């Protein structure tokens, strides 16, 4: 992009600046730190200039928004056309409680829904299971049968509002429930929009919602792909997630690398199954974390888009430009929130949300300031949503596309993130002897991902403990304080009401129909057939999440994670 002669001139000018301007000043005043680095440990130089991005080829590396490799955005108009979807993650108590919170958020201007499930539902355990005691409705909504979904979506038109479901082992069941509700509301399946997280690989690396072993987990996900491309062509069949990898303590580079690696593994599983990559790819989506180091996060999002485009086009030979798009949801970093001086979290979240928007996200969740204490109160979630709205409507940030492009620092950092992520990807590919799918499964088996992430988490904590990393209000500027923010209390009666409803349904439903559907599911699983059709049948007969997962567990076995500190 730059003229060679001009660059030479600049280099000389820079050397002169260092000698006559910088060095005398440095000698006199020094700098705040010996070394400056991003959260991934990338060393940040004092100043960037055109020589740092001299190699950049505008057409090849950036190009215009909506054009390969999509570094500047997947859509030609980005937020000038349509703002990102404001999709606050929420759910607690019973379906009634969550339905009420959803309606409040829609009234306040939220533009999409996002479902938080409780741990029993996430783990495929019914509310009346002894393992669920004390956990029903606590960190999300309790869902046992289709009945709960009917209540959850009461008054919410599926053809107007898209919903995201953060669920993994029982993802097939939740997708089936959503389809069943669409059928009830009379919305054609090809019109259904939404997302299931359905990303088990990252559960093994982090997050740990583990039920089936890795290989059958990938098999069920591939079943969902195969069924989904035929039946719900507008639905995102997976949200390949770096979010939880980051929350477990990874660096931004690890988050980027491991997420892209998992994405490649899923694509390879689909190709092995014989699914047309150009049919599936538009139904893949991603999910990233946005942490505190502003420019590193922006660079991460831009690098992710460029990497995925190259991978889909060059490695997997996808032909449809739509298949090259990496579209993603972002959540601000829950792990960055502090219990101390909770109002400071509003500021952290704002910076992180701005990074997501400057990075070109399609959808955003902003965390509430009270989340180091409990699930968000109404007031806290309203402020979080307003944060997005202020960025959208007051800041002017969305008025031009990718405004930081061409910044010497941002372009240099985007390249750096990409290079470092590729190094990890090549390492994983080597573990799989050329196959990313085998490589990721091997890395799960030998603890590679867990060890890498744990090491980064410990290093981060060490930096905080020793004061090398400042956390405002915690290890610097701390005060004596009494907590005076309202905290959401989940009704302790929710568990009793939920168990009651489940028992009632089990008594009233056609139990022969349930048995038949579950038998069909068992035989499909045993014979390596697609499990989606029998799961849909079982859901419609009001079989419970626990009953359906129970069959899959019996056929495929269960998984217990090795202990690695």
């Amino acid at each position, binding site marked *: 992009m730059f003229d060679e002669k001009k660059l030479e001139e600049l280099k000389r000018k820079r050397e002169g600046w260092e000698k006559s301007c910088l060095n005398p000043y440095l000698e006199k005043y020094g700098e705040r730190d010996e070394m400056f680095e991003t959260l991934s440990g990338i060393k940040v130089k004092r100043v960037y200039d055109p020589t740092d991005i001299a190699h950049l080829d505008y057409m090849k590396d950036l190009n215009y928004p909506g054009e390969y490799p999509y570094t500047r955005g997947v859509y030609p108009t980005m937020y000038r056309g349509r703002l990102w979807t404001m999709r606050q993650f929420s759910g607690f108590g019973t379906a009634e409680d969550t339905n009420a919170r959803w309606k409040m958020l829609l009234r306040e201007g939220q533009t999409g829904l996002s479902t938080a499930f409780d*741990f029993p539902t996430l783990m495929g355990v019914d509310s009346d299971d002894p*393992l669920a005691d004390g*956990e029903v409705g606590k960190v999300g909504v309790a869902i046992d049968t289709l009945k709960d979904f009917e209540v959850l979506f009461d008054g919410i038109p599926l053809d107007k509002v898209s919903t995201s479901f953060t669920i993994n082992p029982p993802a097939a069941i939740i997708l089936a429930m959503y389809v069943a509700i669409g059928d009830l509301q009379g919305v054609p399946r090809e019109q259904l929009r939404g997302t299931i997280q359905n990303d088990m690989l990252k559960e093994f690396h982090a997050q740990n919602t583990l039920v089936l072993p890795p290989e059958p987990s990938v098999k069920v996900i591939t079943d969902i792909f195969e069924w989904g491309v035929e039946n719900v062509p507008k639905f995102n069949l997976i949200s390949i997630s770096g979010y939880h990898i980051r929350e477990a*303590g990874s660096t931004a580079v690890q988050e980027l690398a491991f997420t892209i690696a998992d994405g490649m593994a899923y694509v390879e599983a689909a190709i092995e199954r014989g699914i047309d990559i150009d049919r599936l790819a538009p139904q893949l989506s991603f999910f990233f974390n946005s942490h505190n180091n502003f420019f590193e996060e922006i660079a991460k999002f831009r690098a992710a888009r460029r990497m995925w485009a190259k991978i889909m086009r060059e490695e997997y030979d996808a032909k449809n430009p739509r298949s090259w798009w990496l579209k993603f949801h972002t959540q601000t970093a829950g792990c960055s929130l502090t219990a101390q001086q909770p109002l400071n979290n509003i500021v952290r979240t704002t910076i992180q949300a701005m990074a997501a928007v400057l990075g070109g996200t399609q959808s955003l969740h902003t965390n509430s300031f009270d989340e180091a204490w409990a699930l968000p109160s109404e007031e806290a979630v309203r402020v979080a949503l307003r944060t997005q709205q202020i960025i959208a409507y007051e800041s002017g940030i969305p008025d031009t596309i990718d405004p930081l492009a061409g910044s010497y620092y941002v372009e240099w950092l985007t390249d750096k993130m990409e290079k470092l992520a590729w190094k990890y990807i090549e390492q994983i590919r080597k573990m799989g002897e050329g196959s990313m799918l085998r490589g990721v499964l091997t890395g799960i088996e030998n603890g590679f991902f867990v060890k890498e992430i*744990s090491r980064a*988490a410990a290093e981060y904590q060490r930096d905080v403990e020793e004061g090398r990393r400042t956390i405002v209000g915690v*290890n610097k500027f701390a005060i004596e304080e009494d907590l005076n923010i309202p905290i959401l209390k989940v009704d302790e009666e929710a568990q009793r009401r939920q168990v009651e409803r489940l028992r009632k349904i089990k008594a009233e439903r056609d139990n022969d129909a349930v048995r038949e559907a579950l038998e069909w599911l068992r035989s499909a699983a045993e014979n390596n057939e697609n499990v989606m059709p029998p799961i849909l049948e079982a859901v419609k007969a009001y079989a419970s999440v626990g009953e359906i997962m129970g069959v899959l567990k019996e056929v495929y076995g269960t998984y217990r994670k090795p202990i690695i500190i």
Partner: protein
Amino acid sequence: MDRKIRVLVAKVGLDGHDRGAKVVARFLRDAGFEVIYTGLHRTPEEVAMAAVQEDVDVVGISLHSGAHLTLVPKVMKYIEEFGGDLNELVVIVGGIVPADDIDKLKEMGVDEVFIPGTPIEKIIDYIKAKVPEKKRTGEKV
């Protein structure tokens, strides 16, 4: 006589958030304690059994699920059932615990609750002071 302080770091219930538990376990080990980590998704019974069998001085329970008021008392009940002595054993809870619930847990007999952001040094100092103190007072009872 001068044996290392033994600490059980436990995850109880269905919640899989183990970053805090693992980081604390690693730092306690580096501080010279003998640390046993239970791994994920343990029942209160399994945690209590491990505490008694391993004859630990401290049980540290990590929870991010909001289920602390149900699960923590269950662990303590089973510890006594299996022959452990809560007069001598230090019980610590760590994780996302609302302020009101901290008081409730202490009324139930939990010795201390550490919220996110607590310096691990503070946990280490607490254990070093509390274990001998509880051992002394426990013996008198």
